């Protein structure tokens, strides 16, 4: 258990809790001694090896340093002697590839550095907690020497103390896990690199930031599943794309599950369009000229959340939302679909929203959250943040006292969660505020439900 695996720490916590219950006068002496012996065995080998974690941190830091140098050198190559005497389409593509590689290596260097710091912090926490555990282990060993009730009290206090340390160990392991998961989600080039997408294409696509990790993986999987003739048609479309952004949107349409026929038609519409046009038409959250989609009806936050979720995953659908009238009509269509029984004036139910989303590929489940009950929000936070780190979007139901408003979790950057609010804004909320039930920045205080991918 090098880093204090949360599952194993959880098991130890359960056993310590059970032992704490046994150590009282209501139980027989053999039972109590057995419990004390079991706890002593747990404390003999505390979870997590700080030296090993520190060694892992050092490995991340060493790689981060090498990547920083490699990024700089790749930059020199990208602008160096050969590109200076070589021009034309292939040269342009080559230079773009090298620059994208340089940028991604630079980002990877930062990611490795962050991982190193997370592990450094974790090693330090392990050392501190191990020292505290030493104290409780000594107390427990001494407790056996005392007779009667004094032994009970000392043993009970030692076990309770050890339990507290194990709970803090669990928290530290969870924090490490969350941080690492966010870093993992930033690795993208490898997700699309396949028989159909060479390394050069993978780094250029990852460099656009248009597809999330899960979309890149789905695009690669869907490309692999194409027939030989469809694969050739798709290859031709990708080769014909004028810019990397255009190519990325074609693959995003593939990731959304569209047929090659539909993508051919889509390609005809977007072919040759500039990056501003593509962003304005295909990104529902493009900040350009107030393009951010917003709800028209005050009871349609759920409908708008569904619309934006779909549009963020499907550029062909996003393209269809090209006017205020169409957005308004789509909002109403979705509201009609989700509220066949439930009155529309009461908004969208979580099950209505989930059912509608499940018609378009990714399958979701919803779960109620009571952020006034300890332990209810943490699993929800875990599921929501884990999904967004993987590249999904997550509808979140918030309210004051009762559910009132849907917002969409669209990103996780450091300790902050990025939300799209159907009122037409993008707002950041700290993980701590989400966990503590303070969503005031989004208009309502409490988290009351999350809709996460299965």
């Amino acid at each position: 258990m090098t880093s204090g695996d949360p599952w194993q720490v959880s098991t130890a916590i359960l056993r310590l809790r059970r032992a704490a219950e046994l150590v009282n006068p209501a139980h027989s002496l053999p039972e109590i001694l057995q419990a004390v012996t079991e706890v002593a065995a747990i404390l003999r080998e505390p979870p997590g090896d700080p030296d090993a974690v520190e060694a892992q941190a050092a490995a991340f830091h060493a790689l981060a340093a090498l990547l920083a140098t490699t990024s700089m050198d790749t930059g020199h190559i990208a602008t160096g002697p050969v590109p200076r005497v070589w021009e034309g389409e292939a040269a342009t593509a080559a230079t773009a590839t090298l620059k994208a590689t340089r940028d991604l290596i630079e980002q990877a260097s930062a990611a490795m550095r962050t991982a190193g710091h997370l592990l450094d912090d974790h090693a330090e926490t392990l050392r501190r907690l191990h020292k505290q555990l030493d104290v409780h282990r000594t107390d427990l060993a001494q407790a056996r020497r005392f007779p009667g009730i004094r032994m009970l009290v000392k043993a009970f206090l030692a076990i309770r103390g050890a339990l507290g340390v194990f709970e803090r160990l669990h928290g530290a392991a969870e924090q490490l896990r969350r941080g690492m998961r966010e870093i993992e989600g930033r690795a993208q080039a490898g997700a699309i690199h396949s028989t159909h997408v060479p390394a050069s294409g993978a780094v250029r696509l990852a460099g656009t930031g248009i597809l999330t990790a899960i979309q890149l993986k789905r695009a690669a999987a869907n490309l692999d599943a194409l027939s030989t003739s469809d694969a050739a048609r798709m290859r031709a479309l990708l080769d014909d794309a004028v810019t990397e952004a255009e190519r990325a949107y074609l693959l995003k349409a593939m990731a959304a599950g569209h047929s090659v026929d539909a993508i051919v038609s889509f390609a005809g519409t977007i072919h040759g369009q500039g990056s501003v046009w593509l962003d304005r038409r295909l990104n529902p959250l493009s900040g350009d000229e107030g393009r951010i989609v917003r709800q028209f009806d005050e009871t349609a936050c759920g409908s708008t959340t569904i619309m934006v979720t779909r549009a963020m995953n499907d550029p062909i659908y996003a393209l269809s939302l090209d006017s205020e009238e169409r957005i308004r009509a789509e909002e109403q269509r979705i509201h009609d679909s989700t509220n066949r029984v439930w009155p529309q004036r009461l908004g969208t139910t979580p099950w209505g929203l989930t059912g509608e989303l499940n018609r378009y590929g990714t399958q979701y489940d919803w779960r109620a959250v009571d952020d006034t009950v300890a332990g209810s929000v943490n699993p929800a936070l875990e599921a929501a943040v884990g999904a967004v780190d993987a590249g999904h979007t997550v509808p979140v139901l918030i309210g004051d006292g009762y559910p009132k408003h849907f917002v969409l979790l669209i990103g996780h950057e450091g300790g902050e969660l990025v939300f799209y609010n159907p009122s037409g804004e993008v707002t950041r909320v700290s993980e701590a505020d989400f966990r503590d039930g303070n969503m005031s920045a989004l208009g309502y205080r409490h988290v009351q439900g999350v809709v996460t991918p299965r």
Partner: protein
Amino acid sequence: MIHVDLEALDRQARAIAALGDDLRDAVARWQDALTDPCAPSVRAVRDAYAKDFSAYTEVLCTWADSVRAATCTYRTTDNEAATTFTSPTDASATLTSPAGAQETFTSPAGAPHGDRPTGDPGVTGVQASASRL
């Protein structure tokens, strides 16, 4: 007469190849340091980034091979393995870009089409720009 600094091309190819090799070695050391026992979340980062690093290494190695291939072609063209081409019309090399496409890197005098090195038109231009390599 075209002058191409083959040694400079060679140095460039070697430098790029070394960059790719250094990256590959560093990633291998990093992976070795993260063998079990290791937290599952750390393993997940290792596995996800290993694929990314593999793509970056492939890009660098392809580029190094391209430049090396160009150098070899020049050497073949120049039978005396010197840095001077006596026949401009034969002076061409194919560069395979990291993007996978191939284009002819050639003397303007010898190629009616294809990309040509930048610089002043004509043999003098090639001499000038190729010398920068």
